[in-house]
């Protein structure tokens, strides 16, 4: 068990965004997190990346209590993520964006930067690695283009490259297929599966594109109003009464 979420609740004022959510992900799995808009999927992501504090519950990652770790140490532990509505650094080029992703891999601090001790060498190594990752995601032609004014799908891929730069064990993807065409979605699904093999990843995937989730997930968790309503293999979840009701509404 790599990630174990136990009874996690998040409240914003009077609104309960997550209500006693419990689930776990095994090492090497792709876990799909589905649910209608507002079900709390992105909130879940923000809790795991320590942007929000839950008011109740526990999260452990590889046996370590995640709630003891401040936000900036999450990357070091091997957790990386992408954002639903893009959180890139628009004034930087693509390769620089990926280089920031490798922040936790570097060691040059203020003193070494000012005195240039080993800074050049580190820049070189990280730039090399970042270009490799861009090539992996088919973005190498745009390496020195600023990360703004490019198509949404391209920037989404850039976010994946940036997340991978941290050499993570656990990758959280927040709607990577949003805004893509049908053929692009298929391509992305293949990319995700091959990245898992290549980098030995465990992936938590939030996605509205059901065909893709059902195709590549080993395990699916369905949520509604901050609660888990179903869990199991894609097939089990697809046929679950609660899930069908949540998506289609009314009695079945």
């Amino acid at each position, binding site marked *: 068990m790599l990630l174990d979420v136990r009874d996690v609740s998040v409240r914003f004022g009077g609104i309960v965004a997550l209500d006693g959510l419990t689930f776990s992900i095994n090492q090497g799995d792709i876990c799909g997190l589905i649910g209608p808009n507002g079900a709390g999927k992105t909130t879940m992501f923000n809790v795991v*990346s320590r*942007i929000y504090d839950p008011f109740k519950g526990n999260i452990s990652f590889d046996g370590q209590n995640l709630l003891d770790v*401040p*936000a*900036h*140490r*999450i*990357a*070091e532990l091997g957790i*990386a*993520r992408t*954002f639903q509505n893009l*959180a*890139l*650094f*628009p*004034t*930087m080029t693509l390769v*620089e964006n990926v*280089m*920031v*992703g490798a*922040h*936790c891999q*570097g*060691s*040059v*601090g*203020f003193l*070494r*930067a*000012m*005195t*240039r001790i080993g*800074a050049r060498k*580190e*820049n070189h190594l*990280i*730039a*090399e690695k970042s*270009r490799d990752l861009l090539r992996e995601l088919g973005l*190498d*032609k745009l*390496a*020195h283009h600023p990360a703004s004014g490019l198509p949404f799908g391209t920037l989404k891929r850039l976010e994946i490259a*940036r997340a991978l730069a*941290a050499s993570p064990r656990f990758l959280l993807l927040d709607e990577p297929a949003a805004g893509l065409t049908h053929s692009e979605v298929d391509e992305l699904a293949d990319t995700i599966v091959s990245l898992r093999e290549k980098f030995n990843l465990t992936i938590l995937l939030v996605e509205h594109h059901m065909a893709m989730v059902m195709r590549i997930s080993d395990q699916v968790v369905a949520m509604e109003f901050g609660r888990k309503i179903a869990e199991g293999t894609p097939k089990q979840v697809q046929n679950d009464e609660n899930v069908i009701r949540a998506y289609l509404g009314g009695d079945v």
Partner: protein
Amino acid sequence: MLKIKEGSVVHWAVRVACVLAIAIFIVYIPTHSETARIGQFASAFTLIIAAMSLNLVLGYTGQISIGHSAFFGIGGYTAAILIRDHGWSPGYTFYAAAIIAFIVGCLIAMPVLRIRGAYLALVTLAVAVLFPTLLRWKKLEWLTSGAKGIDSVKYDKLPVWPFLGELKGRDGRAVFAYWLGLLVLVIAFLICRGLIKSRVGRSLIAIRDNETAAAVMGVNVTRTKVLIFGISASLCALAGVLSTLSTGVVTPDGQYVTLLGSIIFLLIMVVGGAGTLSGPIIGGLVYVWLDNTTRGIGTDSRGVVGFIFGWTNQSPATLILGLALIVIMLFAPTGLVGLFRKLSRRIVTIEPQGQ
């Protein structure tokens, strides 16, 4: 359109040519100009260092500070007090000022950098306004000499530097101030350049562009902001020391110690190009040039110039720079350096390596 590959022979040739041209210019000024001109360049160097320090905080990290005049003042007063009361040799006061300003900068940054945007601007504005008042405070008069300020803290005898020979008199002082200013400027530039072209610099820009994403990438946002503010404060203090050593006086009304100083640093940085390494240099030179050429344009001007600027009773340089700022913000939001880059890109492009 011309294309040059990064790291190719042509690229290196252009670089060497630029460096040579700058070097010739740097040596030409103190050897072939009148004393007043040399002094103008020395004061430009001081302003450039201050604008550079502000650039680290505002240009790169995106945290506005209107309080940098206080750090300039801390540097100036540290030098003056150490020389007058403790008989320090002027050269060592640079180190003391840098350390004191670093500590004060970090202490101010810790609570202050938790707030953002306009509120941060207001709090740092308060720092700038409070500082001269603090200097005039009766209970601190034993240290700061109150409203009088501290004077005659110049070098008794100018130190002898290799290549420069023995410098004497008013001319000698100007030449010495020039080279001392240049030395500190080069050190400050190398520090800034080192920071920016490293993992630290990337994390600064990441904080400016998207703080949440920066934290998720593993940047310790609070620590980075506090440390860069401290470093910026200590660089600004170096500029203050330079100013004290070349003029020999510090008072609570000194132009760069009051709020006006912060505004001038800000203006220089933005006009030159915020978030660029050469921006403050260009901005500082332009500011001092404008300040000196427009000094005559005042109440005694006639014609169109007199009509436009006749109502001002001092140098309209700040006014003209303010107008220039509006124009620049409209046409080149990244300042003169940004404008130059945009125009030169039409003629020459430099292709990065590794494509």
